[in-house]
């Protein structure tokens, strides 16, 4: 869905793990899943720290 986010003008966009579980992955063990979630949130924090002038996608995993 990141192209939609870019199109509507969201400024800082972090690709997540999927529509049905953006911050999880049922294929992973609970610990791995939480680690994945943490990486995505940390990426979001990194994006917040970054100055942008246009919709910017902060690369995925």
């Amino acid at each position, binding site marked *: 869905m990141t192209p939609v986010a870019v199109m*509507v*003008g969201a400024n800082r966009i972090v690709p997540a793990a999927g529509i*049905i579980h*953006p911050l999880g992955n049922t294929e992973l063990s609970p610990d791995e899943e*939480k680690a994945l979630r943490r990486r*995505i*949130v940390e990426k979001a*924090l990194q994006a*917040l720290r970054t*100055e942008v002038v246009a919709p910017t996608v902060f690369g995925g995993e």
Partner: protein
Amino acid sequence: MKSLRVVCYLNQFFGQLGGEDKAGVGPQAVKGAVGPARAVEQALGGAGTVVATVRCGDNYVAEQTDKAVAELLALVAAERPDLVIAGPAFLAGRYGVACGALCAAVQAKLGIPAVTGMHGENPGVDLYRRQVYIVETGAEAGRMLAEVGRLVALGLKLVRGEPLGTPAVEGYFARGMTRHIVAERNAAERAVAMLSAKLAGRPFASEVPLPDFPRIPAPRLLKTLEGATIALVTDGGLVPQGNPDGIEPLNATRYGAYSIEGKAGLDAGQYDNVHRGYDTTYVKQDPHRLVPVDVARELEEQGAIGKLHETVYSTTGVATTLAHSARMGREIAEKLRQAGVDAVILTST
């Protein structure tokens, strides 16, 4: 055909009362045509007469719009007009909003047509284009005569009940109306023609107007993350069991504010998900797959962020209208700002 009675509306500047020093002047009507209203008179040709020019200071209207519009409406009504022409306001924001508000009121309360004109970036356009015919003009008054001519031509069509062409043909801002027409060629033929034009580098126009998403400048985080309060927001449909705010499963008009105070995470047993745009099985099993309260709390405890905001805002983003989305976003942002939140992580499905 009887000569039409036309009333013009002008601000203090075009109404020849003065500049900013006269922007507080209240409504007044003068007989006949003043300033650009004379161009209206000219454009009417023999079709009608400007019986009065109503004028008012921009600040007077901007500071008390309801009261000012009611007063202006009374002055307009007293002239028993067949048509009202407001402005054009070009790029003058307060003037444009006043023109839009007056035209809307004239149509609604007096039941007669009203036309105004503005530049596309005048805030009056977005506020009133759906209610009022707003002719597109330049940013400044350099081509007054020609542009007033277009306002008058549209106004005459409305008074006479003549059919209007498309906004592009008539030169007014689209009002968001859908009208059935019979096309000469079927959709496949038109689509192929459009594709051919695109490939050949020829101009073409889509038949589907894309919504206009205004560019919002990206704000900068003014603090370090270690000192910042971060809020979690989602359009993925998280609600407490029982959906106490009645958030709609699609086409949402409401959002909820849910406290996470004292919670290290979200207990699946306490939450539900009403979003009808994706399979919510997995986020119901573990709401953190949608709203990462668990890791955000850890980051808070570890000092990576200053504070996790204790309220999560949630709605369902599916077939939600742009207007409701924008309103909900504005309201949530205002609440977050008042609560001292510095940044938001919005999780979306």
